[in-house]
């Protein structure tokens, strides 16, 4: 079966990004104007959005589509993640456009790499078989390795880049090994049902009940895949790299890694486990529930003693991976056997809210540290007066991450814990809620430093470029608007989620 025009239409959002990335990189040869690079990149992202909306309409009318001989699937779930990734990339590029001056003479490469990585993340969400998952993952990861090490004259970014490279390689190895087991047990690579070839779920239907996951090979495959994805998710015990890389990498890269990358990783985990291993959901639900509890507890407890803001955001990212794993673990409704969309939709909703809050936090840190380069929490003293907008955005983002209304963080946690209680995991909701209390201590600590402490040294206002202000305002508005009127996005998330369990 050859490639048809239809196939190309179905991956048009990704194609637009790849084209834009190429053009952006090439444009760097001609002109080094910041506005030009940013304009081209945003044009590409706008095309991505346009195609995405067209595809949403198409899927809405004609149902789920598959492309390239069933190796890619275009459903609302994938499209939801694509919108999220593209939106995140756009905001990162806008907020980082001034910061990118430091990458001179490679500013356009910076934008290009972000776009390449975004296209990989979008393909990841749409992958329908194990090979495509793996290839997309590499496409998404390798540009980030380069991005993390982008500032050449300092040691920390290079260390971050190398660390990310090595651990990505290790996690990919785990993942491949796991996939090999899954293939061996089922005889197929297909995750999402296709025309002719049987899917993993269908081939595994007849397993023995005595062994978890219905067979040792499947269990090994599932556990190894969990480990492999665990790196991407910053899930304990595979979280070690997160704070180091977030701290060392350029701030916009950290923002991208914390949000877009994590969203796609959650998407593929949800798809693999719900679609391919849905039959043994009771087993992996327990696994993920335990991992969720451990991940958020460790993330929050270690975050308490941090003194560097970006490092703290790294631990906070770990903790939030734990919260979102609650949604992964909340498979079935209490007292029922069939998977329920509540968990998936809560994760999807939270991913969006988390992206808004984390981007706001990173962008604010970007603004607050750009002059001094001092990332210690003490250095935030007096920022409430020196940079009112950035401080406000950071404060609201941190209150949101704590889970205090009326932010999207509260609503997100409400839906996650809802899903947990819905599937009988009341204890997990309690662990999550108590964890929020621990997190209040360090999040509010930063707010307190910003507003209540007098700055020790420099006391002059920090100027914020228009691009930075725009990114801060957009994320700030998203946090509050989604916190007050969550229904719209929640409905979209539920529609997107329902495709995985039907």
């Amino acid at each position, binding site marked *: 079966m050859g490639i048809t025009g239809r196939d190309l239409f179905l991956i048009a959002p990704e194609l637009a990004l790849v084209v834009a990335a190429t053009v952006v990189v090439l444009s760097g040869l001609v002109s080094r104007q910041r506005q030009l690079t940013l304009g081209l990149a945003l044009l590409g992202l706008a095309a991505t959005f346009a195609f995405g909306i067209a595809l949403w309409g198409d899927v809405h009318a004609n149902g789920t589509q598959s492309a390239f001989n069933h190796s890619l699937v275009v459903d609302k779930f994938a499209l939801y993640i694509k919108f999220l990734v593209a939106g995140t990339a756009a905001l990162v590029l806008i907020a980082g456009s001034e910061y990118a001056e430091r990458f001179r003479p490679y500013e356009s490469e910076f934008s290009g790499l972000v776009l390449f990585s975004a296209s990989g993340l979008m393909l990841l969400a749409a992958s329908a078989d194990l090979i495509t998952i793996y290839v997309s993952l590499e496409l998404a990861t390798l540009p980030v390795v380069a991005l993390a090490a982008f500032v050449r004259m300092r040691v920390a970014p290079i260390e971050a880049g190398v660390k990310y490279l090595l651990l990505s390689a290790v996690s990919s190895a785990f993942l491949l090994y796991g996939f090999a087991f899954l293939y061996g047990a089922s005889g197929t690579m297909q995750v999402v049902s296709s025309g002719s070839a049987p899917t993993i779920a269908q081939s595994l239907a007849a397993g023995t009940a005595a062994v978890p996951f219905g067979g040792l090979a499947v269990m090994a495959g599932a556990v190894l895949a969990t480990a492999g994805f665990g790196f991407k998710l910053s899930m304990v015990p595979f979280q070690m790299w997160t704070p180091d890389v977030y701290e060392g990498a350029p701030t916009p890269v950290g923002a991208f890694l914390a949000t877009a990358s994590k969203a796609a990783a959650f998407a593929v985990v949800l798809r693999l486990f719900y679609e391919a291993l849905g039959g043994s959901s009771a087993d992996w639900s327990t696994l993920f529930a335990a991992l969720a509890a451990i991940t958020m507890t460790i993330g929050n407890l270690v975050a308490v003693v941090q003194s560097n803001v970006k490092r703290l955001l790294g631990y906070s990212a770990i903790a939030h991976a734990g919260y979102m794993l609650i949604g992964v673990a909340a498979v079935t409704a209490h007292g029922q056997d069939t998977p329920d969309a509540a968990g998936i939709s809560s994760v999807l909703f939270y991913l969006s809210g988390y992206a808004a809050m984390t981007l706001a936090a990173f962008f604010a840190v970007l603004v607050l540290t750009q002059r001094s380069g001092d990332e210690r929490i003490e250095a935030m003293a007096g920022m409430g007066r020196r940079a009112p907008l950035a401080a406000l955005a950071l404060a609201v983002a941190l209150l949101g991450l704590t889970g*205090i209304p*009326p932010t999207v963080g509260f609503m997100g946690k409400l839906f996650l814990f809802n899903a947990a209680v819905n599937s009988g995991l009341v204890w997990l*909701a*309690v662990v999550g*809620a108590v964890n*929020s209390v621990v997190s209040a201590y360090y999040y509010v600590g930063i707010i307190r430093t910003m507003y209540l402490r007098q700055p020790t040294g420099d006391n002059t206002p920090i100027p914020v470029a228009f691009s930075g202000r725009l990114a801060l305002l957009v994320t700030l508005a998203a946090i509050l608007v989604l916190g007050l009127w969550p*229904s719209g996005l*929640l409905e979209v998330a539920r529609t997107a989620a329902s495709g995985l369990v039907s």
Partner: protein
Amino acid sequence: MLTAITFLPMIGAALALAVRGSTRTTRLIALTTVLAELGLTISMYVIFSAEGDVYQFVQRAPWVSAFGIEFLMGVDGLSAPLVLLNGILGVAAVLVSWRVETRVREYFMWLLLLQGAVMGVFASLDLILFFIFWELELVPMFFLISIWGTGRRDYSAMKFLLFTFLGSAFMFAAILALYFSFPAGERTFDMTALIHKDLTNLIVPSSLVFSGFLVAFAVKLPIVPLHTWLPDAHTDAPTAVSVMLAGVLLKMGGYGLLRINAGMFPEELARAAPLLATLAVVNVLYGAFIVMRQTDLKRLVAYSSVSHMGFVVLGLASVGAGAAQLDGTGLNGAAMQLFTHGTITGLLFVVVGLVYDRAHTRHIADMGGLSGRMPLIAIGFMVAGLASLGLPTTSGFAAEIMVFLGTFPAYGLATALCAFGVVLAAGYILWTAQRTMFGPPLERWAHLEDATRVDVAAMGVLVVPIFLFGVYPALLTDVFDAGIAPIIASFAQGLGG
């Protein structure tokens, strides 16, 4: 109307922050807001009919329909007086803030936001909405204490935040467990519907759900041993915040206990009654004995709050008498105590604040003979003090006598011990009055000035309800009765008559 009552202070808060005028302009904006708010709450209270529907002024709009979360507001006999109380205290709080000079616009913004959030707590009938307002109130409190406070304000603000947040974590889990205990379609966060449901067979044992709520409200009330945040928060908070904290924030705890623990879980409450009676005795006596040892005037009033909140717990324990003997006097007394304590302790904090503003000390040993220098403030102190120790014709007496009468049949010994708390209260109040207000005038206080007109207004706003409801308590009790009656009915039903 309740929506207006809830959001008016928030609009006022936005205005106070947005209008860049003089300090005077900001104060006037704040004062206008709280006066309008008081007007609204008074008219709400007057229109509220004790003979009418259980829930009045109900407003209902879908919000997050996927989870059945509604924007549902309304008041019943239980919450209407507390809404009024919040209206009264808001005025007092703004008036005693007249001398705030630092970051004035922010200050009044947070203060008004606080009032609005507390209004939301009392006016919400949807559990999630209730919870949202409950959490919302933390943020203004945190900033008010840590920016405008004194002493170890950072520590106290954080302690307050973490204690309350921990309590509400349990409440959150309890709310969700309550919601998912019903099959899809019957799930609701609507308190007016939940109160009629059978909540004995839940997704987790209903005693756990009950305890989740109990812990959250016990932190807020506070019940010993979860009280340790309170003296710190009170001592280091600015005067107006102490007034709001003692006046209405603690009442949120008592309100929650009555509305949710008593209203929805009568069996569990009846089972917990012996424990509550014991805790009440500990609260009252421990609090009172600690008061005796205090050298800081504000800390003294704070611990007296702990002691007095014990009476609320004792009133709740009255349900241990069994459905047959239960006539609601105890619960009514507990609710009444919430209201009266709000005005009385609010007034005490106002007076302490006024003294501190002038003398710049709260150390009791340094004071003495102040009444000669500032007679009006001394009068305020005596009114509050005498009401606090339960002098007849003040509202403090009415509330306490009802608690004792209601609970005596159930727990005679506990009631007797708590009544001893009243004796102790008489002791420490009079002793404190003697040490601070009376005695020979001291030379170093000769320059002190008496209350200004604004200060008198702040005290007057609180003195009026103390006497009004003391002389004619039926104004309050009739309304509370209307709110307590359904709870009593559910006891009769739940405990098998």
